[in-house]
């Protein structure tokens, strides 16, 4: 059976069960409209109705700083690679963030494989949580088809009002169901309730947030390399790198050595970097291949909407809206796309209404 039920008053028991075997992290309210994935000890601490957390769950897959090696130069160049991981259960991950994790999985599984990432990934259990409506105006999950679950989780919870219904996607998910003894099998009526909820979602997410068909986005970007929109962003962007830090599919990094005070031992670590930083594409000879902020913003948009299509057959924008929420200069992803669309005369106000990609039914 792929669907199970959890009573609402047993959520706490589920968290306690998970916490016995690993660190459990979930979205926790951090003041007005701010949420963060944080370690919790019981279910009361978690917030399930949240707008996307300030940082996406990528911080558990590739921490802001991650040691790659320790070294000792007392007798030459001696280095010991380090692969760190810890058992973590990610609880309450929205579908946009599941998509972000799927993007990162593809990047770091590609050869040459990234052992540091994969070790962490293999130690993480993911329990997704469905959004029954829009979180806020910045989201564009419908456009990139991430408003409904597309895998990438072990268990996936949907709130049916008085109870949760859970889709079991992996053996790890199945184990939780079996060993926690908290679940009961979903009945036909529960599946029907899930289907009704998804039907209602189809009405809420009735069309793309941005007037363009999903399939037309690569063409839009093929035409937009010389767009005036980038010149506009050039004037507005302050190159702070917020947009890439908060992006669930941005993974660029820098590799840095940090000597200890003895100056002979130390560590080599990687740290999140941003293509928005001025020196990101600069080479030793002095040439900077993306000197202007507009060129760097353009690069970011192409990395979300154009480049990954050929390599990974998917958009790397997850529709979470974080870049727009975090931008100090109010550069808004939805507005940028609308400007590009208008410039190319590709506006289609009904885009997505009859999507060519069929919605998945609730029973797989």
């Amino acid at each position, binding site marked *: 059976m792929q669907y199970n039920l959890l009573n609402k008053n047993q959520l706490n028991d589920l968290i306690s069960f998970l916490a016995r075997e690993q660190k459990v992290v979930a979205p926790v309210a951090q003041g007005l409209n701010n949420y963060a994935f944080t370690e919790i000890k019981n279910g009361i601490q978690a917030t399930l109705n949240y707008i996307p957390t300030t940082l996406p769950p990528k911080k558990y897959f590739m921490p802001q700083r991650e040691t790659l090696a320790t070294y000792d130069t007392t007798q030459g*160049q001696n280095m010991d*690679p380090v692969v760190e991981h810890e058992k973590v259960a990610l609880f309450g991950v929205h579908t946009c963030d599941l998509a972000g994790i799927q993007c990162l999985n593809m*990047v770091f599984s*590609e050869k040459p494989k990234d052992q540091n990432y994969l070790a962490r990934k293999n130690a993480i259990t993911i329990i997704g949580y469905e959004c029954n409506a829009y979180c806020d105006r910045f989201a564009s999950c419908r456009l990139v088809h991430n408003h409904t679950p597309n895998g990438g989780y072990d268990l996936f919870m949907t709130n049916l009002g008085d109870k949760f219904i859970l889709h079991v996607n992996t053996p790890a998910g199945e184990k939780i169901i079996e060993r926690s003894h908290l679940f009961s099998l979903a009945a036909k009526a529960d599946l029907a309730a899930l289907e009704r909820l998804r039907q209602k979602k189809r009405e809420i997410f009735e069309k793309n947030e941005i007037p363009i068909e999903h399939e037309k986005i690569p063409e839009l970007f093929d035409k937009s390399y010389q767009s005036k929109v980038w010149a506009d962003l050039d004037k507005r962007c302050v190159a702070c790198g917020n947009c890439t830090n908060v992006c669930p599919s941005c993974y660029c990094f820098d590799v840095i*050595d940090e*000597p200890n005070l003895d100056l002979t031992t130390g560590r080599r670590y990687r740290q999140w970097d941003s293509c928005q930083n001025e020196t*990101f594409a600069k080479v030793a000879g002095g040439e900077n291949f993306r000197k202007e902020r507009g060129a760097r913003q353009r690069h970011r948009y192409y990395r979300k909407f154009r*480049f990954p299509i050929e*390599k990974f057959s998917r958009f790397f924008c997850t529709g979470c809206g974080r870049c727009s929420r975090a931008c100090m200069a109010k550069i808004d992803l939805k507005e940028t796309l609308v400007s590009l669309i208008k410039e190319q005369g590709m506006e289609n106000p009904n885009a997505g209404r009859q999507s060519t990609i069929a919605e998945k039914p609730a029973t797989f």
Partner: protein
Amino acid sequence: MNTKSPYQIKIGKILSVKQMTSMEKMFEIALPGEDLSHAPGQFVEVSLLGIGEAPLSVSSSPTKQGSFELVVRKVGKLTGALHKLKAGDEVGIRGPFGQGFPVRILEGNDLLFVAGGLGIVPLRSLINFVIGNRKNFGKVDILLGCRNPKEMLFHEELAGWKERLDVNFNCTVDKADPDWKGNVGLITSLIPGVTLDSERTFAVVVGPPIMYKFVIMKLLDKNIPERQILISLERHMKCGLGKCGHCQIGNTYCCQDGPVFTYEKVKAIGGAI
């Protein structure tokens, strides 16, 4: 810990250090017990633990066994520290990385080498490979340009290439000094004078970013097909593994898909040239 971390370095022993110009030194490095086994045009990541890591192209031909050579201009933190090293010191090496020059495809064809400034450093790997396997290649022309005579590298080797009857060598400087008796002018000024059969000529171009556009224009004037113009693009190849993002050009990662590309492949990629 038993891991196959792609960040693990191999120990490189410096066999010799040679001052080339006021800014460049050549390091001869051996990996104890093994050859680097690189292809001409590939690069390595060179480490000094506690200081950092930087991508450097291999300057020696794979025909040279037992050791390899790096020519390093002192421009930053790591290269500054490298310049302080002497024979017997150790460096960390990862690699070789990237796609080098397609030697198998070049075989049987005429070659026109165009090197600007430090471009001769990676190109020397292929030139010496070709000279080492001379009968496998057709006509060979080498054009070299640099800013002034003092910056010219590999004086003795250049003299050797010049003397060979099976290699046409020509060089120019942007600005002469009183002792200079050769050509004065940009590297592009040497291209029209080369006689070539465009159908069977591969042009191999390495130089500073600014050079490519102008040299390629001259090569296209000579009717060399776009897929027969090979270039090596300079980017900051930080991780060498196609992940960190620094060397990305459009959809390609220079460290994995390059640094050697055909002009045909990159001409439409915004920001490549």
